[in-house]
């Protein structure tokens, strides 16, 4: 958020709407109306004084109206832009001429004469990412609005939030008491024809589990129960979250939407549900409604304005395999505007749309952008340390536990500190500007920020130092949130004491910090894409369309990967037509050079400057030079070893069934088909959910019914995970007479031969009986497993998840960035997914790779190892331990070898430092002196 606020190429037009679009792709004129906020953005500092004095209290929309705010207010401490805003409907100026805020605003920022402004901008393309709305629960049968202790999931999100209306305390609205039991009701406004929302909102199951986990973090004693129809934890790492939740004691009760009633005396909520045998009544102190997503309110208006179509649910229409269908009309849609999806899918979907924009506008890249300029770096050589300390409240995340003011006073007493202050949110634009100003004003030459984790925030604060003309390595970030206020939230004094000690250590270390230089690297503007399946080809084409040369390497004898095996999609399209188009474009695009039948055999170099050797089966070797790598090596389908697969002719996989269906090879006698879901997955040893198999089963079941409506088709499942609009097909399959029967992981179905056919026995918990089913054909839904990811991970220095898929840097916000700089991941090597999803992800990977290649040069880290040659005796111990190949021995004179560090390859892990027998290697930014100083500060008794 604050990155967007600070980016020199982004202009944020808040409070604005698009009213007219003219022109054509490449040259649109868009008319935008800016509604008045009655505050001049250029003058407002976001200090909030106006809000303090405003006499009108209104419900705070940021807190889902649970807490109060004022008629003039700043949305939240991190708001971008952090400017006050007047709620015209509540403000007394417009009815009674109240002018208190005008009187108290020192910057004369308040301006009630502000009018709507109309303006035009010229753009080449338009990207729609308008998100979703929330289902309105006030008219449903859940007693919302009537029963005080029934809240929506969004309200609960604010209740558990440290910056929320109850400062993170979970309290009942009826009496302010911590509830003893909390229930979540799933599918509120989803998967229900009663409310006109047939689809599944895709993210509610996982957020409900997250909320129950957060509840347990706050109060381990609160009993938490999730009422659901299916648990749909289909995303990467989600099944693991579900398993952790069960271990943590969170209960899952399967039932249709239960009935809620309020106990008039205690205000408890009594939930009645049918548990399979009888009606059960349970009492809860609080109930959370897991509210589903609805189309954003403006979709219809916007669709008319932009000439886009909506689907039957009111979301923007996305043709199947849609990123390929880019008709280059210059208007692209992504994220939840297209369908309900979670954050990483949103990033990829919006990234795919952005990638289409980048392709269309490639010839004009860089024509209207500006580069961020930094002031020249000030030399601090010979200066005594002048340390500034900035202590972040992080809303109440830190300040709610730690005595921040006390910490500021303490900072002033530490050696070298010449300035100290506390800040509401240090990483907000205002916080950062304040740091920049203080560095300049007070002549600071070291900065200590006591806030959160360096993993996410060190780059943010280093940037502030750069803007102030200080070397970024003169920053020390100390984590008093994760290490103090979060882990010791129940022991405030201890947490504060620990924060003092960590701060003392940080200041001691800061006194010894030295400026470091970052090597500049030229970037080779060619890309290597590994894997020629649908993801790899999509990434290669996207990069080529953006003007970059691409090498595409496929180890098989032909392009297409798993996609080649698919015969039809759920929506009835032919994947082979899409594949043909893709392959022909790959073969004809002059920017793409495809190496089919080649494998990567060696990789050298580093971000911006890779050298890769690929080899064909015949042993032909080709050396390629390139700046980035996109890994799209795909997944494999498991060949099952259970349920008589390979031992009985009547047992096939879903993919084999699909091929039989498309080739008309279903034997005439087949009248009864049984499908088993989750074969050899979602169980110890392979615990993840393979995401796509439920939809595949529904797809093939519908095809069978199409072939012969009289055919008996039974699907044995654990949870049907037909998320999003696929739910409609699940519904259709049930309408067509496909029978879905649930089984439990502990009592899996058993299969035995029965003449030509098979006999399947299955315990069905909903009727508490074992059924015997006869099957002419048994179809196994087998998971996608990682294919060769371990090998590629080792070669490219990537990491894999416990399930064996490639790991991304951040599961939420950076779903395609690998931990190795310049290497991006996409497709099924990352996790099982539908082709549409793989295509979106591939486009996003291409976009991220293009950003890197569009830079003339990039900076490597300055915190790397250095060899002091006169101490080095050339033993090579350091060379042996370096996992990155950053060290080598160089012959200085005949017979005299010295270790050399390649600063670009060095990751600064310091392993070599520990191995060097003579102390010749030092890790800059983590020198012995800096570390010892910090330890001394910890152990000194003076306080």
């Amino acid at each position, binding site marked *: *958020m604050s990155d967007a606020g600070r980016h020199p190429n982004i*202009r944020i037009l808040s409070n*604005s709407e698009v009213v007219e679009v003219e022109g054509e792709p*490449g040259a649109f004129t868009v008319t935008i109306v800016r509604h008045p906020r009655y505050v001049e953005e250029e003058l407002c500092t976001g200090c909030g004084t106006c809000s303090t004095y405003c006499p009108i209290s209104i419900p705070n929309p940021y807190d889902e109206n649970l807490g109060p705010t004022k008629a003039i207010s700043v949305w939240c401490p*991190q708001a971008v832009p952090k400017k006050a805003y007047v709620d015209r409907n509540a403000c007394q100026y417009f009815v009674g001429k109240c002018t208190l805020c005008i009187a108290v605003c020192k910057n004369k920022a308040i301006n009630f004469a502000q009018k709507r402004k109309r303006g035009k901008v*010229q*753009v080449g393309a338009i*990207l729609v990412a308008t998100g979703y709305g929330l289902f309105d629960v006030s008219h449903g049968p859940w007693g919302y609005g009537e029963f005080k202790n029934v809240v929506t999931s969004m309200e609960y999100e604010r209740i558990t939030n440290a910056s929320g209306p109850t400062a993170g305390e979970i309290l009942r609205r009826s009496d302010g008491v911590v509830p003893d039991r909390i229930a979540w009701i799933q599918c509120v406004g989803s998967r229900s024809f009663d409310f006109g929302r047939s689809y599944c909102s895709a993210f509610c199951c996982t957020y409900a589990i997250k909320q129950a986990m957060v509840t347990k973090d706050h109060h381990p004693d609160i009993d938490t129960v999730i009422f659901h129809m299916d648990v749909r934890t289909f995303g990467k790492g989600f099944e693991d979250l579900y398993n952790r939740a069960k271990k943590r004691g969170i209960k899952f009760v399967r039932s249709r939407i239960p009935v809620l009633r309020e106990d008039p005396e205690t205000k408890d909520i009594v939930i009645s549900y049918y548990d399979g045998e009888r009606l059960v009544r349970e009492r809860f102190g609080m109930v959370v409604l897991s509210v589903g997503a609805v189309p954003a309110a403006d979709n219809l208006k916007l669709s008319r304005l932009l000439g886009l179509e909506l689907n039957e649910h009111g979301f923007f229409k996305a043709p199947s395999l849609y990123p390929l269908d880019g008709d280059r009309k210059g208007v692209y849609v992504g994220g939840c505007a297209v369908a309900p999806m979670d954050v990483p899918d949103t990033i990829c979907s919006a990234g795919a749309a952005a990638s289409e924009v980048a392709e269309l506008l490639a010839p004009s890249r860089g024509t209207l952008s500006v580069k961020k300029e930094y002031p020249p770096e000030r030399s601090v050589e010979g200066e005594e340390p002048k340390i500034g300390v900035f202590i972040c409240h992080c809303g109440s995340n830190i300040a709610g536990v730690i005595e921040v003011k006390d910490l500021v006073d303490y900072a002033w007493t530490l050696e070298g500190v010449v300035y100290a202050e506390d800040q509401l949110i240090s990483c907000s634009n205002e916080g950062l500007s304040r740091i920049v100003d203080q560095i300049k004003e007070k002549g600071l030459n070291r900065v200590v920020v006591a806030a959160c984790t360096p993993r996410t925030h060190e780059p943010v604060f280093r940037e502030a130092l750069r803007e102030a003309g200080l070397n970024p390595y003169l920053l020390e970030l100390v984590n008093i949130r994760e290490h103090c206020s979060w882990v010791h939230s129940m022991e405030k004094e201890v947490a504060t004491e620990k924060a003092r000690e960590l701060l003392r250590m940080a200041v001691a270390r800061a006194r010894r910090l030295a400026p470091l230089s970052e090597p500049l690297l030229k970037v080779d503007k060619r890309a290597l894409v590994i894997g020629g399946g649908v993801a790899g080809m999509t990434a290669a084409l996207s990069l080529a369309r953006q003007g970059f040369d691409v090498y595409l390497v496929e180890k098989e004898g032909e392009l297409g990967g798993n996609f080649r095996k698919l015969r039809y999609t759920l929506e009835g399209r032919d994947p082979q037509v899409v594949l043909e188009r893709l392959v022909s474009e790959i073969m004809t695009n002059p920017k793409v050079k495809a190496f089919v039948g080649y494998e990567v055999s060696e990789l050298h170099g580093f971000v911006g400057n890779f050298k890769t050797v690929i080899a064909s089966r015949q042993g032909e070797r080709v050396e390629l030079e390139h700046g980035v790598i996109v890994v799209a090596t795909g997944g494999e389908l498991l060949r099952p070893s259970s349920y008589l697969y390979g031992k009985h002719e009547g047992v096939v996989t879903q993919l084999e069934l699909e091929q039989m269906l498309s080739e008309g090879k279903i034997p005439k006698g087949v009248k009864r088909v049984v499908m088993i879901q989750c074969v050899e997955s979602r169980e110890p040893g392979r615990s993840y959910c393979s995401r796509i198999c439920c939809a595949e089963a529904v797809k093939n079941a519908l095809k069978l019914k199409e072939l012969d409506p009289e055919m008996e088709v039974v699907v044995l499942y654990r949870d049907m995970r037909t998320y999003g609009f696929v739910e409609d097909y699940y519904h259709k399959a049930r309408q067509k007479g496909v029978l879905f029967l649930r089984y439990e992981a502990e009592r899996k179905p058993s299969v035995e031969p029965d003449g030509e056919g098979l006999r399947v026995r299955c315990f069905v918990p909903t009727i508490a009986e074992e059924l015997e089913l006869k099957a002419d054909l048994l179809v196994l839904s087998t998971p996608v497993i990682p294919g060769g990811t371990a090998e590629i991970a080792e070669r490219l220095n990537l990491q894999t998840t416990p399930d064996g898929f490639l790991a991304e840097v951040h599961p*939420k916000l950076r779903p395609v960035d690998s931990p190795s700089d310049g290497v991006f991941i996409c497709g099924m090597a990352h996790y099982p997914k539908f082709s549409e999803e793989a295509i979106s992800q591939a486009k996003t990977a291409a976009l991220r790779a293009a950003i890197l290649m569009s830079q003339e040069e990039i900076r490597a880290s300055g915190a790397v190892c250095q060899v002091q040659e006169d101490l080095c005796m050339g033993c090579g111990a350091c060379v042996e331990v370096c996992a990155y190949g950053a060290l080598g021995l160089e012959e200085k004179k005949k017979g005299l070898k010295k270790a050399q560090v390649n600063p670009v390859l060095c990751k600064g892990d310091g392993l070599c430092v520990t191995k060097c027998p003579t102390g010749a290697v030092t890790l800059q930014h983590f020198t012995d002196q800096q570390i010892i100083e910090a330890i001394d500060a910890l152990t000194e008794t003076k306080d």
Partner: protein
Amino acid sequence: MSNPVGAVLVIGGGIGGIQASLDLASLGFRVYLVESKPQIGGRMAQLDKTFPTVECSI
């Protein structure tokens, strides 16, 4: 089509719109990010922690 205009209009300042804006801006395009509310951030700015790692969302 003569050379297109090297600028983009992004409608919607939630996490999808913000990330797309950042990526396109870093790639060298001028971005106008239009948001109907007085501030960007969308729903994610209101969330407490995010799944599956249960980490801070802002």
